[in-house]
């Protein structure tokens, strides 16, 4: 793939960006030195003045409200292109690290950037920056739904929106599936995950407990 950074593709959902990123081999273009995740335990990065928790909170708040339908592509734009807190390689490495941790990758990217600048306060400020304003917005939307939910046209419009939103999820899944090596064992994992979670409605924890070790074992045995 030509350029696998999350921002360049212009895809609009967090997980779509994941899907774009995934095919990059660990030793690919973005994974050079491997020092992006090196913890500095709160010491400011050499040569750069400290950004500070307040500025981190404001910057990530601005980032998150500009992210329509997914924040990650906008994160690339802000962190790498606009503010230049990270270079392209650092962003790719942070993204890879973020993907290995549970939960939304954007939160981890924000937290690591914040932590590297001003310790745990910086990390907390960055994470709060990502979630605070959208959470308030969700309250307004919840209230709007509560007030308008009985209007037939509003409900029909929402169900139309939902049918469109499903397409986004399916596309994420397809993009991710394209990145799966065309061999029997990885595809066995894809099919098992789909059947257990999607058709048999098995609990996510059971699915992960079964398939994460299996998938890891397959990946470990597979030749590069």
């Amino acid at each position, binding site marked *: 793939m030509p350029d696998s950074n999350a921002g360049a593709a212009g895809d609009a*959902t967090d*997980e779509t960006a994941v899907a774009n990123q995934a095919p990059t081999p660990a030793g690919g273009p973005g994974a050079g030195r491997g020092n992006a995740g090196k913890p500095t335990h709160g010491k400011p990065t050499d040569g750069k003045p400290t950004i500070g928790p307040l500025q981190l909170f404001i910057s990530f708040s601005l980032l998150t409200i500009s992210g329509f339908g997914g*924040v990650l592509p906008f994160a690339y734009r802000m962190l790498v292109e606009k503010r230049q807190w990270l270079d392209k390689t650092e962003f790719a490495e942070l993204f890879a690290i973020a993907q290995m941790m549970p939960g939304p990758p954007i939160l981890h990217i924000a937290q690591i950037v914040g*932590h590297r600048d001003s310790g745990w306060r910086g*990390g907390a400020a960055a994470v709060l920056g990502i979630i605070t304003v959208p959470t308030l917005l969700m309250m307004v939307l919840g209230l709007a739904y509560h007030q308008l939910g009985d209007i037939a046209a509003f409900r029909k419009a929402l*169900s139309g929106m939902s049918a469109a939103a499903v397409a*986004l999820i399916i596309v994420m899944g397809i993009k991710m599936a394209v990145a799966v090596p065309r061999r029997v064992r990885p595809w066995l994992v894809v099919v098992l*995950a789909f059947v257990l979670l999607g*058709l048999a409605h098995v609990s996510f924890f059971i699915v992960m407990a079964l398939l994460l070790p299996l998938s890891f074992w397959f*990946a470990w045995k597979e030749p590069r």
Partner: protein
Amino acid sequence: MDAAWIGALTSSALWQFCMHIALLSGTAIGGGMIAVMPDVHRLVVETNHWVSSEQFTSAFAMAQASPGPNFLYIALIGWQVAGWKGTIAGSIAVALPPALVCYAVIRLGSGRESGALQKAFRRSLVPLSAGLLLASGWVLANTVDDSWRAALMTIVFVVVLLRTRVHPLWLIALGALLGGLGLL
């Protein structure tokens, strides 16, 4: 119905909701909160009937169409479980466990080197994520596409998204328009 009884029920539902979300977000490797959507749906719609299937998908669609990270659909479902408290609690439940894991990783300094183990781990997540996301799409499509016209629109939009670089927000707006006009 007795008001105190309802109050107790609401608070306990909120507690259960938050605990489950916290467990999910603390373990959801590979695909984030979208991939665990079938499990959230099972919890709030199928098992506990806290919200209807329609409310669930509406919350998801509204979160997709508004600015902010798309995992915050959880906060909107929180609103439907327990009002404004549910929104805040849902938001904390989804963000706090990953933040603690991340903090531990930063302090322990792992993720520094990308050894063979990490590479294998990352490769192992790709088929898992694909399967989980496709399952999410399937579960959601089953609840949302209740007419052949809606199903057709979903399929057409999938093709459009794969073939073009149109911003997804336009498709969501188009879906709202077609739905609002009663064409689906």
